[in-house]
Each structure stands twice: as structure tokens, then as C-alpha cells.
């Protein structure tokens, strides 16, 4: 098996192995806080920060972390970064902090972050772990924004808070409520899988 190049490491998580749309990881925040694009971006950025910081520390200290307590140590590191994010948001962007609520603290249990530590950062060099974390984090942001866009456009008739359809717009209430998260996720998965399968079929037909 040849080693993937650096750019492959970076871009793998962005799309081809997108954490939400392909791996189906980190669904709790993806379903819960994507009712507007702004919330999606904020949650994505917070997660990206936590993921990058944790991967950096884990890959740096991987030789000193005994196997038996590795999960505990990862969680400790992740929780530290989450608390930093929580406090910083509360201090400098109280509005966003209010909107995201308990879900910031819940980044700790985002399986995508722990998964990257266990599967990648604990085995790779610092540089590679950093690239992987950045790629995965951006993939997470992209997935959240995709969901947030659908939900905000239909549910509130706006994009990033800018009204799209004028005052008479009838909001699709269900899209900003929790079921809307499931509907939006299902919609994207359906569309993406349909597209992927069609492309593969075309490729197979082209090869034959």
C-alpha cells in the first residue's frame, strides 16, 4: 500500500470520507444545531478547533500515553478544548453561545473527534495528524452548512439571516424543529447516494 500524499490526507476528510455524509459520525450536532447557517458555521468552527487542537496534542504525546488509559486521556484533552471554546464563545459572542446552548459542551462526546484520535492521530506524525484534522473538520463544516442551508432557506426563508423571499414567506416550521434535521439529513443522503451510484454506473458503462 503506497502512502497517501499530503494533499490526499488533507482532502480525504473534506469530501470523499466526509464525516457526516459518508461516515455518519457526529450526527448529534449535525441534527441539533443546524437550523440556521450561522449556527452551523459556528458549531463547525468550534468542532474544527477542538479537533485540530486535540489531534495536535494526541499525536505529539502519543508515545507517552499508555495504551490502557488512552481513551481517558483523549477525552481529557478533548474536554479541555471544548471548555476553552465554551468559555470563549460565552465571553465574546454571547448571542451564538445562547443559540448553540448545551450542544457546545456536547462536542466532548462527538464520536467523530474521538474517532480521529483513535484511528489516526494516535498513530501518525504530528504533521499528518494536523492535515487530517483540518480536512475532517472542514468536511464537518461543509456538511453542517449543507444541512443548515436547506433548513434555513425552507424553515425561515433566509440565508445567513438575509431574507430571501420577502415578508410574505410562509416558513416551513417543521424544518427548524428537530424533525427537520432528520428530513434534511435524509434528503442529502438520498441525493448524494443517488448521484454517486449514477456516476459509478456511468463509469462502468463507459469502461465496458
Amino acid at each position: 500500500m503506497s502512502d497517501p500524499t499530503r494533499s490526499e490526507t488533507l482532502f480525504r476528510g473534506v469530501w470523499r470520507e466526509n464525516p457526516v455524509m459518508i461516515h455518519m459520525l457526529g450526527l448529534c450536532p449535525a441534527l441539533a444545531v443546524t437550523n440556521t447557517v450561522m449556527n452551523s458555521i459556528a458549531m463547525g468552527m468550534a468542532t474544527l478547533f477542538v479537533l485540530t487542537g486535540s489531534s495536535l496534542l494526541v499525536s505529539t504525546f502519543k508515545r507517552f500515553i499508555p495504551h490502557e488509559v488512552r481513551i481517558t486521556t483523549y477525552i481529557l484533552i478533548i474536554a479541555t478544548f471544548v471548555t476553552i471554546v465554551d468559555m470563549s464563545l460565552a465571553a465574546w459572542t454571547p448571542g451564538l453561545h445562547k443559540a448553540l446552548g448545551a450542544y457546545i459542551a456536547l462536542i466532548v462526546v462527538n464520536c467523530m473527534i474521538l474517532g480521529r484520535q483513535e484511528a489516526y492521530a494516535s498513530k501518525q506524525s504530528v504533521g499528518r495528524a494536523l492535515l487530517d484534522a483540518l480536512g475532517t473538520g472542514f468536511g464537518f463544516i461543509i456538511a453542517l452548512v449543507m444541512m443548515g442551508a436547506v433548513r434555513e432557506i425552507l424553515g425561515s426563508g433566509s440565508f445567513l439571516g438575509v431574507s430571501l423571499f420577502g415578508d410574505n414567506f410562509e416558513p416551513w416550521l417543521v424544518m427548524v424543529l428537530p424533525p427537520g434535521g432528520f428530513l434534511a439529513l435524509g434528503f442529502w443522503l438520498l441525493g448524494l447516494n443517488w448521484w454517486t451510484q449514477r456516476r459509478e454506473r456511468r463509469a462502468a458503462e463507459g469502461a465496458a
Partner: protein
Amino acid sequence: MSMKLPRLLVTASPHLKGPASTAKIMWHVTWSLLPVWGVAIWWYGPSAFLVVVAATAGCLLPERLFGKRGSLNDGSCVITGILLGLTLPPGIPLWMAFVGGFFSIAFGKLVFGGLGQNAFNPALLGRAFLQASFPVALTTWPAGGGEWWRLRGDNFALPLMRGDPADTVTEATPLALMKWDRESEAAQALGVDDLVFGMTGGSVGEGAAIVILLCGGYLALRNFLNWRIPASIFLSVAVFSGLLHLIDADRFASPQFMLFSGGLMLGAVYMATDMVTSPVTNRACWIFGFGIGFLTIVIRTWGGLPEGVMYAILLMNALVPFLNRWTQPRVFGTGRKKGAPA
């Protein structure tokens, strides 16, 4: 491990072939809906016609785009569309009816694999989606009667825009009166024969209970629906609301009222009996109908909404696979007890 599976008896041809086919049954159901729709048009004017047409168009589009080739001809989409249209308020903007129809077929049926694969009644799923999305539009009940040509609401609101409420003359539904406004004159004046023969406020197709019953009777006679389902629904509604009425006649409405008000008739005759989403064994049908009746009374009496037939049917739809499994008839010649020596 040693459980015997019932064997399918396969004989050589010629076979007797029944005259019924999926398409034939579906078109029969469709024709039987026309009188119900006709009464609605007579009462609500062109609005009733347009809403049903828009919902049906919304159903046909995804079936044409994503469905199997030829699946449009089996008529099931048209039924879903008409049924959905009949459950909507006549004054609803047409684009909402269209969106509801699209959701019914695309997300209520096609994502499960098409006709026969869906767990939930597609028309009710579409309505539940609309109710969750546009609660205000879905609970604005225009008054019937009056000048026939008049639209009953802002049917022609632009897509994605809300209807102009000024166009609507609203009327409380009997169930809403009973739930929130029992002391009012309108609620006192409401007699059961109004509900059976006359027209009361409500969705397009829940008006004259008697027409729905007659059409359902025809379908039951032709064996296109299992009469046990509506029968058990009516029975359990009558029993439970009767009990409550006996306990406290002031707080709980009478069984006649519960039977003939709201969407119970339409739901019991046309929605609950959907061949795909109702149980296959007769015993399960009794349980199924009983559950729907019970849940309807529970939701109507203690729930936050005045009407509960839709959610009652959807909830029981979810139980259908289990009901089917519990009520498998014993195969003749096999052991009575599980684990008994064969």
C-alpha cells in the same frame, strides 16, 4: 430449529385466476371517492376541486420522475392525491397541497421502494408533514355554503408565500367547538343530523358522513376493503366515548358526536383500510381498528389538538407488522403448543 414452515401448494396449470388486479381495485377505490369529492365541490365550490387536483398533481409528479415505469397506471397515486386533498382545508394555498402530495409519494412511498413497500399511509404522512410545516394554514377552516363561485381562501397564493387571510371567512369545526368553546351558541346548536347529512366546517372531504359510509359500503361489498377495520374503529370509538360520556356528560362529548364529527369517517373508511398499510389477518384487523378508535378518543379528549384520527392511524400503521406476526393463524396439522413434539 425444527419449526415446520407452512408449505405452499403448487399445482400444475390451469389455474383459476381471480378477476381483481391491483389496478382494478385501485381504480374502483378512485371511482368510489368521486361522490365524496362531488359533495365537497357542491359545498365548498371551486376551492374543493382545485385543492384535490393540486394534491393529485403533486403525487403524480414524483411517481412519474422516480417511480417504476408504468406505475402511474395502477391508480394508487391518484388515490393518495385525492385522499390527501380531501383531508386539507379548502382554503389552503394550492402550492401547499402540491408540496404535500409530492412529499406523500416521494417520502411516504418511493423511498420505501414503491407501492406495497411503505409502512405508513402516504396520504396521511403528507398531511402530517403539512401540519408540522404550516400549522396555521392547516387549521384555518373556511365556512362552506354561500355563493358557490367564491374561493374559500387565498388558493392562488404564490408558491412559498402565505395566503392572504383577508380572503377567508372562517368557521370553527365541530371538534374545535367541542374542545374549546363548548358553551358557545354554535356548539349548542350543533345536532348530530347536521354531522350525518349536513355540512359542517372542516377539511374538504369530511363533510357528509353518510356519503362516505355509502361509498365505503360499496367497496366493502365488492371486498375491496376489509369491513372489519371500519367496523372495529366505529365500535371502539362508540364504546370509549360512550363510557366517558356516561361518567361525565358535561365534559365528554356523546358517542354519536364523536362518530360523525371530524375526519373519523374518511379516516376509518378510506385511510385505515389502505391495503398496503393495514394488517393481513382478520384478527389483526380487529385489533388494528380497536387501537385506532381508542387512540382517536384519547387524542381528541386529552390531546392538544381537536382532531386525532390522523395520528391514531399513523401510530397503528407502525404496529401492523407486529400485529401480523402475533396473529398468524395456526397451520392445520401443526402443533398447538410451541415446542410440542411434531
